[in-house]
């Protein structure tokens, strides 16, 4: 029987609580709707996907100069940071102001070791997509079973 790992249990509890509160206070449209802009607790919003060779990341970061966007991978975490500049300072009267501006940073755990120097990222139409190749040791291996 496996040992009961207190730390792991606590980590699981923390994750359960996090996911229970995720989306709280945010409008829900179907499966996973969003309104980018002000009032979003975690910014930027991301999607993660994987296949046997890569991990794929997609993040919503509209209205950024790609130079102001920084993606770093370090020991199982992916950090996305940047700054969205405030609109120009012309003399004006506001009717609506829903879009946020300012610095942001978000760190996510990635579920496998990746080769940090082979990460490719692309910024297009306000969406950042990154492909993180998994390290050789993290790829699934098929083991042949021999008949003795």
């Amino acid at each position, binding site marked *: 029987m496996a040992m009961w790992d207190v730390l792991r249990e606590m980590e699981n509890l923390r994750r359960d609580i996090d996911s229970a509160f995720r989306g709280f206070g945010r409008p829900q449209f179907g499966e996973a709707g969003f309104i*980018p802009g002000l009032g979003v607790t975690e910014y930027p919003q991301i999607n993660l996907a994987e296949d046997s060779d890569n991990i794929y990341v997609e993040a919503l970061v509209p209205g950024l100069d790609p130079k102001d966007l920084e993606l770093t991978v370090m020991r199982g975490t992916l950090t996305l940071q940047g700054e969205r500049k405030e609109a120009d300072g012309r003399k004006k009267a506001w009717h609506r102001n829903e879009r946020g501006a300012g610095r942001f940073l978000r760190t996510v755990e990635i579920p496998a070791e990746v080769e940090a120097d082979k990460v490719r990222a692309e910024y297009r139409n306000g*969406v950042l997509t990154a492909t993180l190749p998994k390290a050789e040791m993290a790829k699934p291996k098929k083991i042949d079973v021999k008949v003795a």
Partner: protein
Amino acid sequence: MAARNIPVRKGEDMPVREGTLSRENYVKPAVDIFETEEELVLTADIPGVSKEHLDIGIDKGILTLRGHAESSLKGDVIYRDFQLTNYYRQFELPDAIDAEKTRAEVKNGVLTLHLAKQEAAKPRRIEITSH
């Protein structure tokens, strides 16, 4: 405050309002709207929408923004915050907008719409002459 008239429409020419579209199929983009002496400027966050998939229309004083975005994410999703889908939002414009002079541009997932005011609606400085 200027009086605002909401035009009364009946039957067929009624524009599609937000409530009649099913909620799963669109999201409302966040917008900024500000006014300068010459124009109204609307900026909207529409990440994932390219120029080809964006449709902006002004009809009978109603501005309609429609956009379509598709995710290019490969593989099996393991964590999801958002779904790239359709954008839809409508605004009622004041009467003093010159619809012909509207300019729009999309850059890095942000739409900027310049709605020019009609000449008559621009503020004027009146010189006072003393005798």
